[in-house]
């Protein structure tokens, strides 16, 4: 009985482990203040959806997390380390633990799908064993349901297929955190739903913590454990999909009524 209690305690502690802590994050481009005061905590295994209008700076937040952009002020702790104080080497090491799916998938168009998937394995993880490389490629391609596309060029793939391969390329290094930048933008509703479900399946399979930037409510409904709504450089509301759906706030409700 004591053992069970101990296990439960450990599990609840594990659930509460915070992997991303953002405090007072600010970022401006010229005179435009994009992030005014961003505060966010993301727990291990959690899927957080950041919702907001286009041009609100949703993507800027996750670009700061991976060090693509340097914030003007604030603290940004990822996996216990302060990103804003990292050296180039530390940043590179931290990035190997984070997967980033870009809006347009960002497949390397001078490489085939196989070469795209091999790239992070040989350059980042420095795996030399071809058998292991092939095994990992097979595993992720099977996961995204595109085993037949292995020798295709990115230009031969549809928008949905590109997103799937992009997801496979980020998952192949088995990251602890996944950052999705508008994963369903530009896709038809059916493919959008498939990608959203795929994100959930992959999250269960690889047990990742995720931040999903989107303005697609269907994607948010399928993927979110928790949602934050961004407006004018700040997070104005937070809660589950169901909680926010019932919100009295006019702006929050407007997302659900699809008037924005």
């Amino acid at each position, binding site marked *: 009985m004591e053992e069970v209690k101990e296990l439960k305690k450990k599990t609840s502690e594990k659930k509460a482990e915070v992997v991303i802590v953002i405090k007072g994050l600010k970022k*401006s*481009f*010229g005179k435009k203040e994009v992030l005014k005061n961003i505060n966010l905590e993301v727990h291990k295994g959690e899927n957080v959806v950041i919702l907001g209008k286009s041009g609100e700076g949703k993507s800027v937040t996750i670009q700061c997390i*991976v060090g*693509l952009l*340097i*914030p*003007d*002020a604030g603290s940004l702790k990822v996996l216990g380390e302060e990103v*804003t*104080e990292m050296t180039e080497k530390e940043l*590179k*090491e931290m*990035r*190997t633990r*984070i997967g*980033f799916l*870009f*809006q*347009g998938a*960002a*497949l*390397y*168009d*001078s490489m085939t799908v196989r070469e795209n998937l091999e*790239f*992070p394995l040989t*350059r*980042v993880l420095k795996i030399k064993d071809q058998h292991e490389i092939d095994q990992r490629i097979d595993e992720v391609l099977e996961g995204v349901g595109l085993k037949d596309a292995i020798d295709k060029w990115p230009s031969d793939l549809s928008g949905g297929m590109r997103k799937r391969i992009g997801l496979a*390329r*980020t998952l192949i*290094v088995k990251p602890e955190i996944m950052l999705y930048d508008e994963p369903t933008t530009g896709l038809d509703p059916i493919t959008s739903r498939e990608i959203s479900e795929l994100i959930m399946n992959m999250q269960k399979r690889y047990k990742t913590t995720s931040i999903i930037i989107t303005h697609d409510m269907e994607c948010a409904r399928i993927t979110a454990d928790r949602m934050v709504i961004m407006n004018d450089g700040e997070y104005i509301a937070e809660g589950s999909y169901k909680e926010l759906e019932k919100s009295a706030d006019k702006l929050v409700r407007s997302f659900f009524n699809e008037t924005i």
Partner: protein
Amino acid sequence: MAEQDIELTGWRKWFAGIGDQGVFFGRFLRNIFAGGFEWSEFVRQCYEIGYRSVMLVGITSFIMGAVLILQLRPSLASFGQEGMLPKTLTVSLIREIGPVITALICAGKIASSIGAELGSMKVTEQIDAMEVSGANPVQYLVVTRIIAATLMIPLLSLIGDVIGLFGGFLAININDHVSGVLYFHKCLASIDFTDFLPAFVKTIFFGLAIGFVGCYKGYNSNRGTESVGLAANSAVVTASLWIFVIDAIAVQITSILFYH
């Protein structure tokens, strides 16, 4: 830590650009010796830059050699010195026209292609994707292209020189009958090491300038499709300017060292 985006104008912007290029060149130098040289990409770039430019350089040099003979003939004939045609052609072709014409053609073909390729990769977030995956985009994209250009331009220039002499041989035989043995004997007898070496050394710098300018313009292009065209265009113009600047400096140094 905080790094504000400062908008610069006029000469401040120009100096900032020079500083930026210096930093980029420093990154290139550091990454040459950082370990993990991308041999396969380097070989691919040598093929793209070198082999795929042979035809263009060959045709241009052949025509240039022929045209030079046709232009020189009346001048030399006016004081009965047609016998000097092979010598005049060889010296002008090896010392100056061959390297400069080859470099200018390569500035148009290679610098623009590198600028457009990297610019397009920047716009479609492929460079960011490489960076956030923990890979080294400078080592993979920049180092390989600059070194390939630095090695291939001198080789192309040599090939262009030889083909230019063949063009001259054809042009001489339009009006006269000169045997190949006599023509090439006269060509080779008219140049020595001091003609060939400085010209060869300056083509190495031409190659470095073409590769560097192409990579810098592409890698630092802005986001948006228009910037791809601007990067390509700006790469050609800047690389061509650099070729003339390097040529002027090289001629001065060569005069001091060899012809005084």
